């Protein structure tokens, strides 16, 4: 296909997409308007299950099955990275410790922010059913916070404080326990991932039934999974080039 024909084909496709988007946008409810069909259905259900954070209730209770799918995607991505980026025996011999200079300011900032970030991550996971956040967000904050150790220039410190084996076990166990929680709901409540635990008092830490349980499980899975994933990428960076 010539460049000219390709340009015309692309333009025709773009025009088609533009027409579809404009027709769809014209029929959408007004931005910031009062019409929210899903909100009107989700809000009473959320309040009945004693979950102040509507988003978490949707993620871990009303549509918990979707979250199981998303969690499986994260697990699959980590397994794929593990199998693709595992250093071969020949590469393993070329791994050498990293040398580099890190500005003292960066070092101090990294070490100062490390406890703050970890605490924030734990807080976001633990209060996922009460305040904005939840397992995924908290897990990601925990995993990125952990890698401030790497930013601070101490890859050996990160490697020592990063039990990769245990992260792999934790990731797999949390993914499995999510399904187990779902099956418990099936047995006790008659539906997969049914919210069967006592709902507790509105706004207290131990409330909302299975929402905090699933949130913490996802938090463990995402944090451990991201640490494993980044470890594979960082490990590849340490392998010396063959022809250098």
């Amino acid at each position: 296909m010539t460049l000219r024909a390709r340009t015309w084909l692309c333009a025709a496709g773009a025009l088609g997409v533009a027409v579809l988007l404009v027709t769809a946008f014209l029929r959408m409810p007004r931005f910031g308007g009062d019409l929210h069909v899903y909100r009107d259905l989700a809000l009473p259900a959320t309040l009945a299950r004693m979950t102040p954070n509507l988003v978490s209730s949707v993620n871990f209770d009303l549509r918990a099955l979707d979250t199981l799918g998303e969690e499986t995607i994260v697990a699959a991505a980590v397994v794929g990275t593990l199998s693709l980026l595992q250093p071969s025996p020949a590469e393993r011999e070329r791994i050498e410790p990293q040398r580099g200079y890190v500005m003292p300011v960066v070092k101090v900032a990294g070490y100062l922010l490390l406890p703050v970030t970890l605490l924030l991550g734990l807080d976001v996971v633990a209060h996922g059913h009460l305040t904005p956040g939840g397992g995924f967000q908290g897990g990601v904050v925990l995993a990125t916070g952990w890698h401030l150790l790497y930013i601070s220039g101490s890859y050996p410190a990160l490697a020592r404080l990063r039990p990769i084996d245990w992260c792999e076990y934790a990731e797999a166990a949390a993914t499995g326990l999510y399904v187990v929680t779902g099956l418990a709901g099936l047995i006790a409540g008659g539906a997969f991932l049914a919210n069967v635990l006592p709902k507790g008092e509105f706004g207290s830490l131990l409330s909302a039934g299975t929402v905090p349980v699933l949130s913490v499980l996802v938090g463990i899975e995402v944090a451990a999974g991201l640490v494993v994933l980044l470890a594979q990428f960082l490990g590849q960076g340490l392998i010396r080039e063959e022809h250098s």
Partner: protein
Amino acid sequence: MTTAVLLVALAFVAVAGFAVVATPDPRRQAITLSLFSLCLTLLFVVLQAPDVALSELAVGSAVVPLLVLLTIRKVGGR
């Protein structure tokens, strides 16, 4: 007032998105991508979606650029 803040946030996202596309070098693109994610985070906060903002901040502005940079470092020399 809210509309003005929203429009400013949207404009930031548009400019940053254009900057990502217009950056030729993938190494620099990782940095503009990170800035683009920061703008998106701002937009999500303005739209009262703090959950999404937190994820975007951590994944979009930290993890993804780091993965991009590490990958370029690994494959860039060939």
